[in-house]
């Protein structure tokens, strides 16, 4: 079960694989470092390569959003798979993440 946060293009972070309690702590660090190194004015969080996400994946999106906001970046969440979107709805995050 591999997972990663990588820079797919300037200002585009790609989350991939299984986002859960095992992978979460490392992914949080990867994302923070990439966002800190980015000089782009905007940040896209691309979820299209996510295989499976628990609430940890949603927390990662929130954490990266906070990082981006603190750096004054405009943030957009893209490509959330259906299952992840469903979970976001249960936890009342649908509009919150879509509105970024």
């Amino acid at each position, binding site marked *: 079960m591999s997972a990663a946060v990588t820079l797919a293009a300037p200002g585009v972070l790609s989350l991939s694989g299984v986002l859960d309690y095992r992978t979460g*702590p490392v992914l*949080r660090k990867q994302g923070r470092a990439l966002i800190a190194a980015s000089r782009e004015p905007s940040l896209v969080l691309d979820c299209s390569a996510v295989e499976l996400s628990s609430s*940890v994946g*949603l*927390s990662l999106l929130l*954490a990266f959003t906070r990082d981006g906001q603190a750096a004054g970046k405009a943030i957009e969440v893209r490509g959330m798979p259906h299952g992840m979107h469903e979970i976001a709805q*249960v*936890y009342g995050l649908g509009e919150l993440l879509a509105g970024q």
Partner: protein
Amino acid sequence: MSVDNAYAVELKGVTFKRGARSIFNNVDIRIPRGKVTGIMGPSGCGKTTLLRLMGAQLRPASGEVWVAGQNLPTLSRSDLFDARKHMGVLFQSGALFTDLDVFENVAFPLRVHTQLPEEMIRDIVLMKLQAVGLRGAIELMPDELSGGMKRRVALARAIALDPQILMYDEPFVGQDPIAMGVLVRLIRLLNDALGITSIVVSHDLAETASIADYLYVVGDGQVLGQGTPQELMESDNPRIRQFMKGDPDGPVPFHFPAPDYRADLLGKR
């Protein structure tokens, strides 16, 4: 190996005894994955014991308990610890830690079982409490909550680790009609939207039948019947009819086995 991926939990030929008394005798139960399954039966018939067998808090005298491809009674202590991360339990009593506030109660399993940083623990706790409608109660202590609120906090804690299997032990007991309605909706919502397998142990027939996709009726140490709620309602098996219709006596006896009443009171003549 477990035989069928369509089932999240399989009990095969399980026998469980307390002392000399047999609680379950060669029982087979299969819990369909992703569905709400009700396990019903009169009080004292061993429903909670069944849950404990599925959670490996109890070991069967014989038989197999398959969960997520693993036969639990054969696992080591550390493997069992890992296997339990995938199972959430809503205890009958709620079992909140009385000296921890609502936030810390829900955070507890995350702190014990994960290495997540504090900011992510906070996110997840707030998400779980939002789902049960109690995000505003994070600073309250358990003794400041109503019975229904306690049960919902316990539910938020039970789903903290995103379990694949969620077991509810008598979730409706002692709940007022509003709290009951909230719980029924939450169980269904969490099951369907999060893809959880739900096992509801209850003797509350109406509520359980209203949310369960599949029902087992247990009693007398065995499975008396199984099927959809509709199938069981229409069953002509007298044991099932007795339970589904709430008759006090029938094939499942009202009286626990006892010595002769007259002899007990007046002595032997």
